[in-house]
């Protein structure tokens, strides 16, 4: 059910010396080509640009990655349980707007709480529509994506609003060493999410639901509750992303977060999470997020036109699809390059 890699890896000697969770984690990482791609990309850009591996730039990449990463964590959970959440991009804009606009009226703590509450509420609404009304999650979250965009414009208006609280922007641009506080929070959440997925009943049952929903229902798993929780987590993390962006930029613009759901899906897909559910993990999603961030940053550093950056990322995604085709069929690495004529769509 879980993609924990295979045993025929050359570095088996080192692996055998590891035990328990560390061994499982290493297997997870090595079982997916995304980490190799990430490593290759880092080497490539480090060779081409002297600034790429500076601490300042690494901090930048991690910050860029963590904005996307918040979304990718939540999306991984939702996708593993067999659904999709397209509303996160618009939700980022809404929560960024709420946290900034309400500062003047309610004070900072309440404004942030309101933004987080909006995220949770949106997740609840999505989960309710999906699980109680029985509407396909693609439609539900697509509609929410449109609607939340409208709400964002209603809250923020059509111009940029500057955050009033100095503490808010201070936290948003706080660096611990060269690493942003936001990135630290992201990695903490990532570890928590990985723990939840691999060590708790909720995680186990989420995989089961995505793998075969009917079987999960028959096995007595409370499907609705788990799916609902995943949507709420996704909404909450999107809210957190919105607040982080607003704090980092010190302002809110109604167009924040537009198109982020596409990037997040790309990162999750690159990380090898199966888009129909039942397989994947957040650690590999991290690699997807980092790869996107490294590509964007590195391609800019070597002065490639911003338009080609999109092409490069599209290509990376295409390669991920081919790799996914291979992993879905359970084939060995060289075999997936061969076009299988007998497989019908």
């Amino acid at each position, binding site marked *: 059910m879980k993609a924990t890699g295979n045993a025929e890896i050359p570095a088996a000697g080192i692996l055998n010396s590891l035990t328990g969770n560390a061994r499982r984690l290493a297997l997870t990482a090595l079982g997916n080509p995304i980490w190799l791609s990430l490593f290759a990309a880092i080497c490539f850009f480090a060779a081409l640009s002297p600034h790429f591996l500076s601490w300042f730039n690494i901090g930048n990449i991690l910050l860029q990655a963590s904005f996307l990463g918040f979304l990718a964590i939540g999306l991984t959970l939702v996708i593993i349980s*067999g659904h*999709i959440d397209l509303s996160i991009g618009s939700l980022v804009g809404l929560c960024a707007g709420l946290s900034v606009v309400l500062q003047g009226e309610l004070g900072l703590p309440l404004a942030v709480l309101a933004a987080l509450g909006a995220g949770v509420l949106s997740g609840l609404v999505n989960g309710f*529509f999906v*699980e*109680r*009304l*029985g*509407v*396909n*999650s*693609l*439609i*539900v979250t*697509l*509609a*929410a*994506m*449109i*609607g*939340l*965009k*409208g*709400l*964002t*414009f*209603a809250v923020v208006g059509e111009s940029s609003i500057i955050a009033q609280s100095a503490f808010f922007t201070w936290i948003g641009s706080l660096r611990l060493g060269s690493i942003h506080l936001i990135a630290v929070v992201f990695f903490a959440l990532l570890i928590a999410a990985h723990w939840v997925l691999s060590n708790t009943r909720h995680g186990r049952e989420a995989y089961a639901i995505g793998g*075969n*929903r*009917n079987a999960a229902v028959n096995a007595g798993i409370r499907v609705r509750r788990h799916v609902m929780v995943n949507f709420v987590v996704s909404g909450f993390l999107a809210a957190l992303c919105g607040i982080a962006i607003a704090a980092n930029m010190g302002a809110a613009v109604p167009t924040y977060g537009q198109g982020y759901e*596409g990037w997040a*899906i*790309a990162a999750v*897909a690159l990380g090898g999470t*199966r*888009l*129909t559910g039942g397989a994947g993990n957040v650690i590999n999603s991290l690699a997807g997020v980092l790869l996107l961030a490294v590509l964007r940053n590195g391609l800019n550093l070597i002065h490639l*036109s*911003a*338009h*080609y*950056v*999109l*092409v490069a*990322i*599209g290509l990376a*995604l*295409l390669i991920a*699809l*081919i790799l*996914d*085709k291979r992993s*879905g*069929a359970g084939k060995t690495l060289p075999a997936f390059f061969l076009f299988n004529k007998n*497989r*019908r*769509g």
Partner: protein
Amino acid sequence: MTRDPGLSTRSSQHERAREARAREAAEPSQFFCAERKASGARAAFSRAAAQRSPSRGSEQRARKAVGSVADESRERAQKTGRVRSRSGTLVYSGGADIYVAHPDTTWFAVFGRGFLFGLPVPVLLFAALAVALGVLLHMTAFGRKIFAIGGNETAAAFSGIDTRKTVALAYLIGGLTTSVAALIIASRVMGAQANTGDGYELDVISAVILGGTSFLGGSGTMAGTVVGVVLLAFMQNGLLLLGLPYYIQWIITWGVIISAVWVEMAAKRKRILL
């Protein structure tokens, strides 16, 4: 269409960009409008062939067992397609806006601004395409194959339908109708921006769903899609005429889409809640 001598831009600096523009005049639809508004017909076709639906639901479980890999990668391809075609658009146009400098020396405006028998040409084009593709969908073997594949792809394949060819043709038709829409928009504004049509796919999907095409594939009508498109257009226009801000229509679209699909699902399962 041949090269248009009247074409130039506000800020022409690079030879490459100029060349690109000239090519664009030759083939206005194919390149810079990859994500242009698809007329309802396009989405109806691909929906009827179940191409946008994640394979969930019981009958699709069966299909999953047989063709899960192909299904999955196709689904992903749709999601990545958005990113890739947008980047293609940006690279092709160099990110710049392109305008027809001397609109009066060309007859290109006829597609978007022309009138025929007192009716706007875009409306006539839409009507003609809707009728032609409606006939194709409902009265030909090809149309029946599309419904069959949407209903149960495995069964369709076993009954001798070349599913890959049919689906590819459905996408081809989608591309064709998209390019017609692109032609109309380019002709209406006599120019093109790289981001024209961003977000139109949402409007189109909403219209098709409103028109009663099943999101899981296998059912739907062209007439319904036309009604959906018209309904959405009237709603957006009406809300603006009421003096409401433009973003209100997005919030209302949210409710309209979900309630439309919910009503359909509830009627099908004869229960209000799942």
